[in-house]
């Protein structure tokens, strides 16, 4: 059972936004990628987060995303781990704890984004 709170998730999303936006190379890579991403925390059904990628920059809001290109669903602690860079999305994706709904290219691209920030 997770002890993560909505505030922990929001802090992780803030951290992720900073890392995405300060990475000039990543911004250039994503300059054509305008996507709406819904973040769904399985164990916190009232929590809503909407990530917006626009011309390489990321922003997010605490509100539902009506017509997302990608829906990212996982337990809160998994989401926090990914947005904080403490874990890659690959293993939770492969073991089924993280589900990504969207086009294959968008899903792959989201994986690239996190690996470009955290991968070493």
């Amino acid at each position, binding site marked *: 059972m997770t002890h993560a709170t909505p505030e922990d998730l929001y802090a992780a999303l803030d951290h992720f936004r900073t890392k995405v936006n300060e990475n000039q*190379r990543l911004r*250039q*890579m*994503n*300059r*054509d*990628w305008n996507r709406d991403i819904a973040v769904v925390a399985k164990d916190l059904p009232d929590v809503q987060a909407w990530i917006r990628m626009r011309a390489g920059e990321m922003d997010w809001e605490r509100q539902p995303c009506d017509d997302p290109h990608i829906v990212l669903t996982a337990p809160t602690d998994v989401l926090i781990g990914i947005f904080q860079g403490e874990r*890659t999305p*690959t*293993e939770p*994706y*492969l073991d089924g704890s993280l589900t990504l709904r969207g086009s*294959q*290219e968008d*899903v*792959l*691209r989201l*994986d*690239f984004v996190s*690996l*470009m920030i955290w*991968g*070493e």
Partner: protein
Amino acid sequence: MKRVLGVSLGSSQRDHTVRVSMLGEEIELSRKGTDGDLDRAEQLIREHDGKVDAIGLGGIDVYFFARGERYVVRDGLRLMEAARATPAVDGSGIKDTLERDAVQYLLHHTELLKPTTRVLMVSAVDRFGMAEAFVEIGCPIVFGDLIFSAGMPYPITTLDELADIARRILPEMAKMPFTMLYPTGKEQEKEGATERFQEYYEAADVIAGDWHFIRKYLPPRVDGKWFLTNTTTSKDIAELRQRGATHVVTTTPEMAGRSFGTNVIEAMIVALSGQRPEELGHEGYAEWLRRLQLEPRIENLQGGSAS
């Protein structure tokens, strides 16, 4: 007669069997595509394990390389390990030598390649030897690994940056289902969105690398350009001719109207030698490539004088 089976994640529409004579030995080369079905590929390998002399793994890599680092592709390794008795190879044992040699051959024996030739390599981590060979010559080059595998409009222009991005991405990406990284099965038959990424084709004199990546975004017109690749069929060649390409150079020889993947050529060498891949090693493969005298095959698509 030696028997070599190529098991490919590619389209079954490209299946074929040919018999060839190499160094006085008859060899049957058979290719079976599984339309992107990894389980079926594994089953095919198990069914033929111990019954053929060597197995080539096509439409998938077992290893990616960048600057001395080797990244193991999880799905590729799964297929390789499905063969217990018969050696299974993915082409990486000969690719480095064969493709470096092909670039050198084109530089020294043709007018096609010069140090000023602008190169688009659609993917370099599966052909790092070719990538290094172009860079050593001094060719201006774009590595399209992010463009063609992930649809990211980011041309990589140096081997250092390629190695840096590979170090960040490949350890994890190599664990993903291979079908997410590379067109397999019916995806190989689809025409790409032909206006997308057209500028990278237009800015190059030669388009090099994996044929299915090349074809993914192939523009309607490629006038004046030539292609360095392999695994092309006669239909692919006709398509390039119709779109205005001048030449197609394949790093592997044509047999019965198509060029085989390096995996099949490596498997053929393993079958001919009677040795396991680890016994052959880099030097062993290089010696067999010398004996087989494999040279790039250059096809002039628009007639006129051969270059």
